């Protein structure tokens, strides 16, 4: 069963349910979602390395996939999820990099 209401709805914790797309008031609307392997995440670090765009990933997503999203762009808050663990960091550099990857035509991407 993989039906899911894609509309963002509030949950007790103030985030959204069944969707990573934050839409609640007070949260910046620009949000990036990415999935990377732990190894790749370690290698990537926080450097402002230009990302190479891949049209269609050909390898399957790994079971230990890490999901990261910009929870609040204005505050530079990024939430990282792996397994049943979720952590939110204030890391403006990481947030900026994710936002740039989400909007490759923006100034940050160039």
């Amino acid at each position, binding site marked *: *069963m993989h*039906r899911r*209401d894609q509309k963002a*709805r509030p949950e007790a914790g103030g985030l959204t349910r*069944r969707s990573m797309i934050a839409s609640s008031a007070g949260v910046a609307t620009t949000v990036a979602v990415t*999935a990377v392997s732990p190894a790749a995440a370690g290698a990537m670090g926080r450097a402002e390395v230009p990302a190479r765009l891949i049209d269609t990933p050909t390898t*399957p997503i790994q*079971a230990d996939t890490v*999901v990261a999203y910009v929870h609040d762009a204005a505050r530079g808050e990024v939430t990282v999820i792996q397994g049943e663990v979720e952590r939110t960091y204030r890391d403006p550099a990481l947030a900026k990099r994710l936002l740039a990857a989400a909007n490759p035509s923006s100034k940050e991407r160039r």
Partner: protein
Amino acid sequence: MSSHREAPGTSQDPVADSTDVYAFVCPDEPSKVTLICNYIPLEGPAAGPNFYEFGDDVLYSLNISNQGTAEPDITYEFQFETTILNPDTFLYNTGPISSLDDPHFNKRQFYSVTRTVGSTSTVLATGLASPPCNIGPLSTPSYATLAKTAIHRLPGGIRVFAGQRAEGFYVDLGAVFDLGDLRPFENLHAFGNLPARDGVNATAQVNVHTIAIQVPITDLTAGSPTIGVWATASRRKVEMRTNPPVETGPWVQVSRLGNPLFNEVLVPLGKKDTWNASSPANDSHYAGKVAHPELASLLNVLYPGVFPNLARYNKPRADLLAILLTGIPAGVVSPTYTTFTGTTQADMLRLNTSIPPSSSPNVLGILGGDVAGFPNGRRVIDDVFTIELRAIAGVTIPLVDSTFTPDGAAGVVTDGLTFDNYLPVFPYLGVPYSGYDVPNN
């Protein structure tokens, strides 16, 4: 309905939509309690080729509070996994299914049961088979016998069952949500011009998916014999629609159920999803809606002149606050009867396990003089719709306010239904209707 499609979120997510919770001292084994939670509302039996099943991506939990804090002191968790023997056919079954491991049974579900006490989790069993759905005489020719083999005995005197059952909750759904119509009283309805007539059971021939566990009472209690029970369903926070799909992240509660009709009737539309995602320990936020239920006001509007005493009663409904949010203290119904779990306001089904099963149960529970029935827990036979309707109409106010005289209608108002498709033994809910037999012409 009790809690079928009761909130915007769950109405879009049937496998996580808890429809009814039951908790009762077993009439055939009074040293044990049976806990039941149903999911997937209004299953039409003719549901091929992909018959109903539990969600592999849902964490189903039965929660028990035994310390008076409305926190889950004990939790039984159920997780399912679907396997397909032959993916190269579209068929659910490739021939008659005569056993749970019959090679014709192509799409199967297995589940695990985990008991958590505090921070300690113990896996009680894995790989337990669910029965197939009741398809028809060619596919499932001896369904009752087949389903019986899916009752699993676990160490410690525990029984579990997870699979399709006949819906046990009965309600005139078509009328009730047509502006609160009660067919036996529709000649009195403000907007109607129809003669009174018998109720129609809208859930008479539909199925649900049942999770039932029977455990010794001593496995659930700690000091007080009264426990609080509620069910939850949770999903992983993240789902990616990749192939195969990926689900990850912490479990996020998307559904909750304790007392029947609580979220459905007392919680306003804009808060139902939030309520489903929250804990019973936070239910004081909803106490105002219990103290001044919207439905009581509607009764006076929809049935003008029928409930004059209720219309004049403007005190907070201490009777409903006790029944639904704290339990009934000793001395209210009788010197010894109590379902009180403490002052924490929480929607839980409260079961005083020291009250023995009734030898002549009354479907109206406490309103029928049967203290073993709702709101002392809930048995599968209890007519909770009528009990709660009469309570909201004022019949229970005198328990806490001797100055109030209930209206005559409050003691007789009903949707006019009876139902008897139950089993005398675990899992107590009846054999599900087959797709071959229902619907019939």
